[in-house]
Structures are given as structure tokens and as C-alpha cells.
């Protein structure tokens, strides 16, 4: 999409990240997607009076990790607040969140040389789920999700296009997956995003009214929603009208945004510190523990693969995009001799299998060590790429446990002969049988079999089909 001439697009994102803790944020109820309705609900989740919520240490650690990974200051003293609104899937009548003192502040990411600042990352609990289509007059409430831990990451309005927004979102998702705090599953809502969008005339200092598009659950929808809003706001401005500051939703079927809540209904959340919880205090010891648990981050890994292993931008990017694929590659590196060849196999053969089977690398049948073994055989010239690709790889997919050397033996593989080898044999044969060669040229095409037989006698391991094709070409003088 092109930015309208003379305008500038201003975008800030609020990204919700569902944490992979075992239990909920303030109670030992299981944090689990897809359980039967209300299976993971105790009297603390329902907000009964007199219960004692206690903060989950793992959630705090995960929040701090995300902060460290995005260059934030981790506030070693921070606390929770109540955010009040009434809705049936919010049993307490308030959401426990962090307003005044969030756990992480003032971070940034650099994407393609451009700095995008992060205002804050705070912890909060999710709400339950309302189901409206099970009963004509009633709504059904499932509180399994109520009280599960989320991070909300808020960027500064530093993003200037739909593509930048997508890159930022993708890097946040990648980062969260690399530090093992979120599964990144967009279909199941493990990450959701709200986009604050406005446009202004180039050179203007002030921001115009912004529109908040809520609950975008895919990168494609994020981009589409931005593109639609920019067009809509541009038309309004060109007509001399002002954009209303309002909340909108994106309708993927119609590919438009729709007003959900105007500013007249703007909320009054009456925040105040949550008195039922103590403060979050991250001791220096805990900080060190948290730091030690962060392994390599996506941008660091991409740089490393390019610098140390000489991968191309394309290969390095493709490998680092998904954490499980990066892990698979790193496992291959433990034994593989050619990192470049390993990357090729991963980005072509393996990726093709993943696409064909619509599967993740977790379900790929060949262990990284075994694939490395195959790649090494090619590197050593013990196998041709062609045979590895066409015959052995498919066989490895079928026989997950068979030893590679036995597999190759069992296939009774016919080795491809090199063209040069074939050529020198043919040249010798023509000197030996010039009359047969001439006869073939004059039309006795049946003599092809004679030549093939002679060559096969000299190269018994070779592939007859390949030899046949080569000799035919040779005799027809298609080979110089």
C-alpha cells in the first residue's frame, strides 16, 4: 500500500501475549486452552469474597524476560491495580492489571535500522468467555480463561506503515516464542493486537484523532485493517471532515472496519491499587535467574547464522522465523559438515514436506541428526544430491528408525555415473568399433542396444536409464 501523497501514517500497537504458565496469574487453577467449560475454575477465579489471590512467580519471570528481550527497564518494584467495568465474564467486576507501575518500561526494537520504541509491558489477567448463540434469551459464561496471565505490550506511535506494523508484530511474536513465554498460536488467540491508527499532513507536529481497531488476530488482518483505516481517514480529511476518536472492529469478510464504541461512551475505569495483593518485588537474585534463562534472540541468531555460518539473508531469515525450525537447524549444526547445505535441505525438502502436510516441524519424521548424516554423505561425495533427494529422503520419511547405511544398502542404489566418465568410455568404443558407429549414423538405430551393453559391462553399478539417455544423445551428436 502507498501512503497517500502529502500524508504520514501514525500507528501504535497494543499486543496481548498469553503466557505459557501452568497455573493462572493469581490462583493455582490450571491455565489450559480447550478444557471443558468451567473445568479450571475455583472460588478465587469466581471472585468470591474472602479468598486470597497470590501472584504467580513464573508469570513475573516471563514478563521480565520479555522486557529484557525488548530492551526495557525492568522495574524491580511494581504492583497491580484494579480496572473497573461490569461484564458477566469478568466475575470480580474489575480486571486486575498494572496501570500505575507496570513491570517493564521504556524499551525498543530496531527493525531494518529503524527504532520503534516500546512504552511499557504490563501483566494482567484475561477475562472469561461469553457465548451468545447457545440460548435465545441467555448468555453462557465459561470462566476457564478468567484469571489466566497475559502481557500487554504497548508501542509508542512510531510505526509509519502497515508493513512496519506487521514486521513489529512478527518480531514480538518471534521473540516471545524464542524466550518460551508464549506458543504464538494466532488461531487459538495466544496473541491478539489492537492498532491505534491516525494520519496527518506531512510536517504537522500534532497528532489527529486516532481510531483504535480492536482484537486483530492475524498479521494479515492487522495490515488490512490499517490499509482500510488509512483510506477512510484520508477520504475524510480530503473532504475537510474530522476523524472521530472511536473504537472500531475489523470485519474480515467485508474487509472494512466498523464503529464499536464512540467517545461519548468512553470508559471510566476508576483505577486504584489492588489491596488484596502485595507488591511485586524482583530481587537481584531473581533478576539474575531470569537473565540466565534467556537464550539467543531471533535477531541475534539471524546475525550469527549470516556471520559465522555464511548463510544468505534469505536462508537465515527463513530459518529464524519460527523458533522450532531454528532449534531443528541448531541441532543439525552439531554434526553437519556444511551449514549451507544443511540450510538448503531445511528450506527446500523439509519445508516442502511441512507445507504438503500442513504440519509443524515437531511432527516431521526425520530427526535433525539423521538429516545431518544424509547431508554429510552428499558433502563427502558418497551420494549424489539427486539420489539423496529422490530416493533416500523419501525412504527416510517412511522408515523413521532404520539406520541410514542399511537403508541405502537395502535400496540397492544404482549410482549415477558422471557424464565425463561416460564420455571417455564412448570415445574409446568408437575408436574400437568405427563401423558400428557409422552404421548407427546411417539409420541402424537398433545398434543403440549394442553400445549400451558395452558401457554397462564397464560400469555395472550405473543406472541403465541414465546410461541409455546419455548414449542416445551422444550418438545423435547432441553432446559435444
Amino acid at each position, binding site marked *: 500500500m502507498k501512503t497517500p501523497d502529502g500524508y504520514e501514517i501514525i500507528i501504535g500497537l497494543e499486543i496481548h501475549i498469553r503466557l505459557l504458565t501452568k497455573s493462572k496469574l493469581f490462583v*493455582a487453577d490450571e491455565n489450559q486452552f480447550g478444557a471443558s467449560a468451567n473445568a479450571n475454575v475455583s472460588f478465587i477465579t469466581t471472585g468470591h469474597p474472602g479468598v486470597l489471590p497470590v501472584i504467580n512467580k513464573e508469570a513475573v519471570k516471563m514478563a521480565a524476560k520479555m522486557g529484557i528481550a525488548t530492551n526495557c527497564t525492568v522495574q524491580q518494584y511494581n504492583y497491580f491495580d484494579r480496572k473497573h467495568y461490569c*461484564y458477566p465474564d469478568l466475575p470480580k467486576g474489575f480486571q486486575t492489571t498494572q496501570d500505575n507501575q507496570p513491570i517493564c518500561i521504556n524499551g525498543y526494537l530496531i527493525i531494518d535500522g529503524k527504532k520503534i520504541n516500546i512504552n511499557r509491558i504490563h501483566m494482567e489477567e484475561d477475562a472469561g468467555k461469553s457465548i451468545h448463540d447457545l440460548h435465545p434469551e*441467555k448468555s453462557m459464561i465459561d470462566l476457564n480463561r478468567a484469571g489466566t496471565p497475559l502481557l500487554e505490550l504497548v508501542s509508542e506511535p512510531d510505526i509509519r506503515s502497515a508493513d512496519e506494523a506487521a514486521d513489529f508484530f512478527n518480531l514480538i511474536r518471534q521473540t516471545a516464542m524464542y524466550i518460551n513465554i508464549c506458543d504464538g498460536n494466532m488461531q487459538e488467540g495466544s496473541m491478539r493486537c489492537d492498532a491505534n491508527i491516525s494520519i496527518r499532513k506531512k510536517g504537522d507536529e500534532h497528532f489527529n484523532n486516532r481510531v483504535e481497531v480492536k482484537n486483530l488476530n492475524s498479521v494479515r488482518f492487522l495490515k488490512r485493517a490499517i490499509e482500510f483505516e488509512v483510506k477512510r481517514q484520508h477520504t475524510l480529511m480530503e473532504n475537510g471532515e474530522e476523524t472521530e476518536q472511536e473504537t472500531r472492529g475489523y470485519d474480515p469478510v467485508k474487509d472494512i472496519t466498523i464503529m464499536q464504541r464512540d467517545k461519548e461512551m468512553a470508559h471510566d475505569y476508576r483505577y486504584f491499587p489492588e489491596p488484596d495483593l*502485595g*507488591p*511485586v518485588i524482583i530481587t537481584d537474585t531473581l533478576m539474575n535467574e531470569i537473565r540466565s534463562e534467556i537464550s539467543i534472540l531471533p535477531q541475534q541468531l539471524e546475525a550469527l547464522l549470516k556471520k559465522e555460518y555464511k548463510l544468505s539473508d534469505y536462508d537465515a531469515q527463513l530459518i529464524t522465523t519460527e523458533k522450532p525450525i531454528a532449534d531443528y537447524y541448531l541441532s543439525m549444526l552439531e554434526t553437519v559438515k556444511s551449514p549451507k547445505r544443511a540450510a538448503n535441505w531445511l528450506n527446500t525438502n523439509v519445508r516442502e514436506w511441512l507445507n504438503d502436510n500442513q504440519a509443524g516441524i515437531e511432527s516431521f519424521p526425520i530427526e535433525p541428526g539423521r538429516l545431518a548424516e544424509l547431508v554429510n554423505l552428499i558433502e563427502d561425495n558418497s551420494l549424489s544430491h539427486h539420489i539423496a533427494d529422490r530416493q533416500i529422503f523419501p525412504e527416510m520419511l517412511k522408515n523413521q528408525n532404520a539406520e541410514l547405511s542399511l537403508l541405502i544398502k537395502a535400496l540397492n542404489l544404482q549410482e549415477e555415473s558422471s557424464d565425463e566418465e561416460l564420455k571417455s568410455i564412448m570415445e574409446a568404443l568408437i575408436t574400437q568399433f568405427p563401423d558400428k558407429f557409422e552404421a548407427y549414423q546411417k539409420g541402424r538405430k537398433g545398434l543403440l542396444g549394442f553400445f549400451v551393453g558395452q558401457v554397462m559391462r564397464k560400469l555395472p553399478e550405473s543406472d541403465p536409464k541414465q546410461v541409455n539417455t546419455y548414449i542416445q544423445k551422444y550418438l545423435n551428436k547432441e553432446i559435444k
Partner: protein
Amino acid sequence: MRIDDVLFEHLAKLSKLKFSAKEKSKIKSELEQMLDFIRQVQEVDTEGVEPLIHLNPDGKLREDVVKVLSTKEEVLKNAPDANEDYFQVPKVLNSK
């Protein structure tokens, strides 16, 4: 401090509650009493005093361990209305 009708209606709306005229005048006067009490408290000079946010400031955290504290049956038994596995409430749509 006076609670006028505009503020009262705003608070009622935020709380998703409706009141009769009689209830309204009673609650208004109670709210006014509370605010008067707060005003008295606010008269105290707190210059240089750190706000007390947490009565128990030790910052104790809980290990991330799953425990079953109450069953679905117990929890739903305490609900005003339930249907199969769900809490059941009057139909609500999009007024979040």
C-alpha cells in the same frame, strides 16, 4: 460534597444498576456522607509522607503449581443460575 443527578446516573450506569426514586435519595445521601468523611481525611497534612499502597509489603510470590481447589459442581452450585457446564446470565451483547 453534593452528589448531583448527573454524577449519580453516571455511577449507576458504570455499575449497570437501576434505582427507584426512593433508593436513589437514600444512596445519594450515603455517598455524600462517605465523601464528607474522605474530605476530612484529606485535610490531614501528608507533605513528605510516602503513600501506603500495600499493608503487607513483603512481595511474596507463588510457585507455578496447579492445584484443584474447588470442583466445577461446587462452583456452579453457588451460581445464581447455571445451565449444564455454564454459568447462565441474561443475554448480553457487545456492551463491553
